[in-house]
């Protein structure tokens, strides 16, 4: 069974991933992703009933440190790499769609 990702599906995925995508690139990417998914079809076809999933190589438990005040990066250091800063905070364009 050949996997065919549609351009509409690719545009949906790009929206979810917050990636602007031209119409031309959507077509190109649809072909490439389809080829990759087609290659991994064999994995989908494996009968793995009863095999548990592994999400991580280690037997992990949550690691928590003691809740103690200790030195950390200053506000200036944290904001130092930001593209836009205002009044000691990260500045972003408007979030809601309404006009002022």
């Amino acid at each position, binding site marked *: 069974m050949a996997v065919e990702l549609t351009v509409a599906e690719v545009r949906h995925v790009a929206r979810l991933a917050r990636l602007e995508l031209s119409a031309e690139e959507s077509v190109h990417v649809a072909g490439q992703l389809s080829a990759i998914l087609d290659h*991994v079809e064999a994995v989908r076809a494996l009968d793995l009933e009863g095999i548990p999933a592994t999400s991580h190589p280690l037997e992990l438990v949550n690691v928590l440190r003691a809740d103690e005040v200790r030195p950390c990066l200053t506000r200036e250091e944290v904001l130092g790499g930001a593209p836009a800063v205002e009044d000691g905070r*990260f500045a972003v364009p408007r979030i809601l769609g309404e006009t002022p």
Partner: protein
Amino acid sequence: MSGAGGPRPGAEGLSDAASIASRVRSGELRAADVAEQVLGDVESRDAELHCFNLVTGEAMRAAAAEVDRLVATGADPGPLAGVPVALKDNLCTKGVPTTCSSRMLEGWSPPYDATVVRRLVAAGALVVGKTNLDEFAMGSSTENSAFGPTRNPWDTGRVPGGSSGGSAAAVAAGFAALALGSDTGGSIRQPAALCGVVGIKPTYGLVSRYGLVAFASSLDQVGPFATTVADAALLLETIAGHDEMDSTSLGGPVPRLTEALRSGVDGLRVGVVRDFLADASADCVAAVRNGADVLSRAGASVEDVALPELLHGLSAYYLIAPAEASSNLARYDGVRYGLRVDGEDVEQMNARTRAAGFGPEVRRRIMLGTYVLSAGYYDAYYAQAQRVRTLVARAFARAYEHVDVLLAPTAPSVAFPLGAKTEDPLEMYLADLFTIPSNLAGHPAMSVPFALDGQGLPVGVQVLAPALGEVAMLRAGVALESGATPGARGPVRPGAVV
């Protein structure tokens, strides 16, 4: 000038970290002289190779002066005193640009050092600079760098492998005795093989990931490059060990790695992964068979093992790694650091920033990962891939009931020409077929330069071991090294071989 491969005349002392450190510590060699020689060499030869995104010459001179001062006052300058080290440019360096070879982070300087960087500096190492990589470590040739490819020092028409191609090539070119890379699906071992140097992916959790820019967090591991197995073990011992800044860092003592180098392989049980041999070139298969013979003659027992499940690892990896990457790379949103491209609102700013900042392979993997995690596909792809991960781990466990280490090709072929695989992502992904299973299982594995093919290009042999099996792995690695074809390992002059 040397007209053939092999160590460069007069520079042997700079090819071996252990002897540099020993000579600097005794006062016989000044760290300042090491720094000047390296910086001069990089200045004259790296324009062609492009191992480095950034050379930190002034900081290197200052570090060398400090080492020399400590030696002069009789203080301990550290086990890596005066040793030039190159850092993959996805390791955070405080106040020094860290780009991941991406437009997204161009010009950004982290506010802190990665733990491995701190440990190196504390050990007296001299950081030469930041090395080129496939953007965000996604690739197998270093051609996905936004700043242009790195060239293989053995043949500048060929790739160095990737994603840690800059680090592997820097060691192969003799620019640094040691380098750090990161390995998510083979990104240390494959370039090590293609560049004729030693590369180790340690057990997951043995080395701190704090300050390693995340790609796929359940697979990523920092590890060493060197020209000798002994140097690689020395570097791994220096960077390994618990770090409270990494919640996946293992507790417990670090295995005594450098001691393993003297134990030999008498009685070591070695399995050859038969299932990998059909997909490797004749030269790569011959290297594995000859490597097995070397180990056998040195007292190891050798048998073929069948592990067909490992071949499913590639497909599982190319679902799991993009899924984790799509989540990890969500942080590049034009708000807190890196590039911003303005938009009418936040969502448009995010989308424009990410389209402009990420290259094609990174965008492709983010979309692939987003797709396999999206509603309706999660179980069919992502959850199924995680079950394959269990299958791979069980196959390894079955093998390690009978053998101590496994032997396999590192890569399916020697270094390929630039541009040979850039048009077909799948073809590039296949370069990782033999390295991926160790990442899925969290196991250590290393590539040892072992042979030369008919064109004089290096061929690596891979040694795989179970979790925390570094000692057995290094025992086999040293034995392979001692039986390797003369001239099969770096450093080399660029273009000297072909």
